[in-house]
């Protein structure tokens, strides 16, 4: 009897301990026999939604993909205001007089990463091949392909490139799995010879250079299609064709991510999980930049000038969806870089944007940068109250204490926006600042009197009636959003205006705003490219139809200037037009300007050459890790 109990006890113990026998060390596929490897570890918090440059539309996917897929152009790592430089292109484009034709030379000798899609040698080793102009043409055809959802990439070039619509129409009639549609002609993007590309535009589009600086239009070898999309691995190791109806039109497997970048993606999946990027041995000879902006030299960002990149052999990114664990991993020195969770901010950053002593003692470095984004409270000018009274909008702007708003609700993680253009843009110093972008209750009350006159004249309110209650829609239901709501209520109340706060889920707010079903709403815009046009188009009258003009701001004079400027290449004359347009917006207040966010990034002392870039991606290749120091500091050997 006793023995039975003993046996039962042993079995129970063994069962409860059994999970531990199957614990494995995380496998990143790193060669353990090569101790000299430099490994960078960071964390990421949002699942990767796309592995194909054409379908990429979110920042998370872009920040991964851009390290392996490169475009013709890119951004200089160090220079601010940001500057576009050639990456795969050999020099800047040659632009015709009418600015409609761009001719671009491609660097010679560029190689893709080695992949079995290029065949194998007699030892079974995968091969590579040179990048040719035709690969870029294919990339653009894929972006235009109606059978691939290319949300972002298509929007930028739609109605801009000659023959794009015709190509789309013709390709529509093809079967989804029939890739012979890529043999159809595409007039606007042509390969003149193996290393020369030519773009033909239907309208002047000076922002094309910024579009070409995105990795979404990276060269795409046709071998990927035949090897990975038309054929597949069988369980016995052989390869067999995929039936046409089962074919995917885009890459779903990280092995098929064949790019030219400094790294290739060794491990990546859609459902989270760790990402491993390894050094691409066939990466071209590229060197660390030798010029930077003011302060870069002091910050040690030019110490590696002229050295060959990349410095790091393996980049590991751990999937940590929650803020706090990610933060704890950084503090435990398991990851190299980290942002700062909102709730930890006070314990990390002292007033005046300085690190606390304990962190500074550990040698942790703080980097901050102003994101090229502007947040505002949008006014729906179709609303009879807000639309009929410019003075009311000005009064609300004057009554809003943005400095306190940023201090109390955002720990000063932002600066007051002075007009609709971010300060990181080259043109910013020449643009006028809004006279209503200040906190002045007295002026606000005076404006409110004028607003009453305007509204009475328009017949919206009767003399003696109180102002109607204003409804403010927010894009979230969580506590921070509620506090924003409470703050707005308080600010409006200061000049005697009542506000009702509506909490919405983000997609619902977007829908409401796009259909002009709101009165006042929180919104913001993050730059796609560093040109004020990107922000001014939000107030361009005809954009009401495409729902990008969400304030229903219609000003014929503004529209005329916009049309004129949108055909011009960067020049002082264009800046002058921009400044006129910004002046109009400042006066008309279609939005209540709130803030331009400031982002903070921390890194451990063994990380160097880390400088956050406001627009571009794909700068892993410049990062350097002092492996010795890391080992010493983490006590890991």
């Amino acid at each position, binding site marked *: 009897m006793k023995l039975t109990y003993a046996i039962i006890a042993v079995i129970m113990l063994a069962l409860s301990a059994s999970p531990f026998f199957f614990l494995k060390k995380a496998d990143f596929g790193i060669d353990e026999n090569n101790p000299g490897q430099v490994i960078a570890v960071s964390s990421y918090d949002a699942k990767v939604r796309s592995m194909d440059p054409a379908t990429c539309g979110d920042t998370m996917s872009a920040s991964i993909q851009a390290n392996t897929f490169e475009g013709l152009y890119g951004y200089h790592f160090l220079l601010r205001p940001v500057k576009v430089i050639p990456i795969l292109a050999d020099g800047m484009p040659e632009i015709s007089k009418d600015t409609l034709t761009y001719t671009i030379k491609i660097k010679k000798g560029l190689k893709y990463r080695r992949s079995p899609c290029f065949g194998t040698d007699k030892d079974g080793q995968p091969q590579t091949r040179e990048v040719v102009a035709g690969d870029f043409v294919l990339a653009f055809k894929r972006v235009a392909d109606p059978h691939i959802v290319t949300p972002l990439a298509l929007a930028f070039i739609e109605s801009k490139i000659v023959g794009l619509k015709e190509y789309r129409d013709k390709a529509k009639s093809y079967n989804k799995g029939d890739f012979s549609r890529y043999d159809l002609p595409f007039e606007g993007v042509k390969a003149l010879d193996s290393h020369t590309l030519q773009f033909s535009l239907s309208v002047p589009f000076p922002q094309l250079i910024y579009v070409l600086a995105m990795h979404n239009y990276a060269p795409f070898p046709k071998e990927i299609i035949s090897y990975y999309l038309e054929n597949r691995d069988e369980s016995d190791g052989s390869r067999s064709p995929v039936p046409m109806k089962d074919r995917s039109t885009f890459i779903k497997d990280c092995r098929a991510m064949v790019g030219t970048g400094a790294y290739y993606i060794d491990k990546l999946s859609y459902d989270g999980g760790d990402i491993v990027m390894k050094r691409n041995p066939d990466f071209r000879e590229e060197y660390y930049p030798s010029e930077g902006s003011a302060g870069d030299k002091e910050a040690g960002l030019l110490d590696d000038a002229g050295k060959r990149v990349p410095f790091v052999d393996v980049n590991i990114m751990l999937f940590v969806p929650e803020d706090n664990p990610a933060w704890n991993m950084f503090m435990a020195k398991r990851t190299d870089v980290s942002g700062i969770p909102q*709730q930890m901010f006070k314990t990390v950053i002292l007033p005046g944007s300085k690190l606390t002593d304990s962190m500074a003692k550990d040698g942790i470095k703080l980097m901050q940068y102003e994101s090229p984004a502007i947040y505002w409270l949008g006014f729906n000018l179709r609303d009879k109250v807000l639309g009929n009274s410019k003075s009311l909008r000005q009064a609300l702007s004057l009554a809003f204490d943005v400095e306190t708003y940023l201090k109390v609700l955002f720990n000063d993680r932002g600066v007051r926006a002075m007009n609709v253009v971010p300060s990181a843009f080259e043109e910013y110093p020449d643009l006028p600042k809004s006279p209503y972008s200040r906190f002045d209750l007295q002026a606000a009350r005076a404006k409110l009197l004028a607003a009453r006159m305007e509204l009475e004249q328009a017949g919206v309110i009767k003399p003696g009636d109180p102002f109607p209650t204003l409804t403010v829609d927010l894009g979230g239901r969580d506590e921070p959003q509620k*506090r924003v*709501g409470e703050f707005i209520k*308080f600010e409006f*109340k200061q000049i005697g205006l009542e506000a009702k706060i509506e909490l919405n889920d983000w997609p619902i707010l977007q829908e409401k705003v796009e259909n002009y079903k709101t009165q006042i709403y929180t919104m913001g815009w993050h730059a796609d490219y560093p040109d004020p046009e990107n922000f001014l188009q939000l107030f361009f009258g005809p954009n009401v139809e495409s729902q990008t003009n969400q304030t229903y701001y219609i000003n014929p004079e503004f529209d005329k200037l916009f049309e004129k400027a949108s055909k011009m290449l960067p020049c002082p004359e264009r800046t002058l037009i921009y400044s006129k347009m910004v002046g109009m917006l400042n006066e008309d207040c279609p939005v209540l300007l709130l803030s331009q966010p400031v982002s903070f990034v921390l890194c451990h002392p063994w990380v160097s050459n880390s400088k956050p870039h406001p627009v571009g991606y794909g700068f892993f290749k410049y990062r350097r890790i002092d492996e010795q120091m890391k080992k010493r500091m983490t006590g890991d050997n």
Partner: protein
Amino acid sequence: MSQINLTVNPPAGDSAQSLDLASPGRSLWGDAMRRLRRDRGAMICFAIICFYVLLALTAMTYEMVSENSGGSIPTFQETCDFANYYKPPTTEKVKWWLGTDWSGKSVLFKTILGAKVSLTVGLMANLIAVPLGMLLGAIAGYFGRRIDDVITWLYSTLSSIPGIILLIAMKFAFKNVHFLGLDLSGIHGIYIALGVISWVGTCRLVRAETMKIRELDYVVAARAVGRSDMAILARHVLPNVLHIGIINFSLGFVGAVHAEVILSYLGLGVDVGVPSWGTMINGARNDLMSGYWWELASSVTAMFFLVLALNIFGDRLRDAFDPKLKNV
């Protein structure tokens, strides 16, 4: 002398015993009340509840006065003081005794004002739920057959859906709904949603009790002399199940206070800016990590004592009304 005294004034316990036997006309109610009054724990809890009611009434008066004062007395929302945000508890000023919140508003006042929301939610939800439950329970139990089937089906269906999920669903359904001039997206929606889902317990108990009472001699007799069903229900059945209603009222109160807190925590409760314990607890999600514990501590403590008092009081109420415990 002493001899006479003894016979005239017998020991107190004896007298009570003999009084009980001697006056059979004393009602269940009076009896229960007497027993309750003798219960010190119940009385303390009752005092605590009264204190909270007082707080709520004060809060209500303040809100009414400040809203109609035309700006001379600031409403709570207007007491923001951004220079003194996140001030830890200090004795410097009365309003800082429990510290200040993210906008510099007094946490002490916020907690007191929160009592109003919690108590009104408890009260209103039960004012809907208990009468509804009693009525439906009595009808189902008394008439039986089809009516019983329908009502049983109704409450089984309702109780098969997890309460909090039903509550959330109703709150979403109430969005932008106006009913009898009430905006159901705010607190009125909570009253109704809670009332509509929490009558099930009362209904079940009352139904069972009514089924028993229906067969008792006095009901049979009343039916025999030709009294109408409605009269029997009103005169003979309902008074005998009323105590169930009262007990459920006090217990349901606790549930309603909980529910308000949970709904506000989920962002479906009161309007933005209305102080309530639920929103205070929700706010702590952000604040606690930065070390601002006082708002959470105040609201949770306030809620703890109210819920504890209500629970104990409800329990003692049940004891007092239970005829089986009458002579214990």
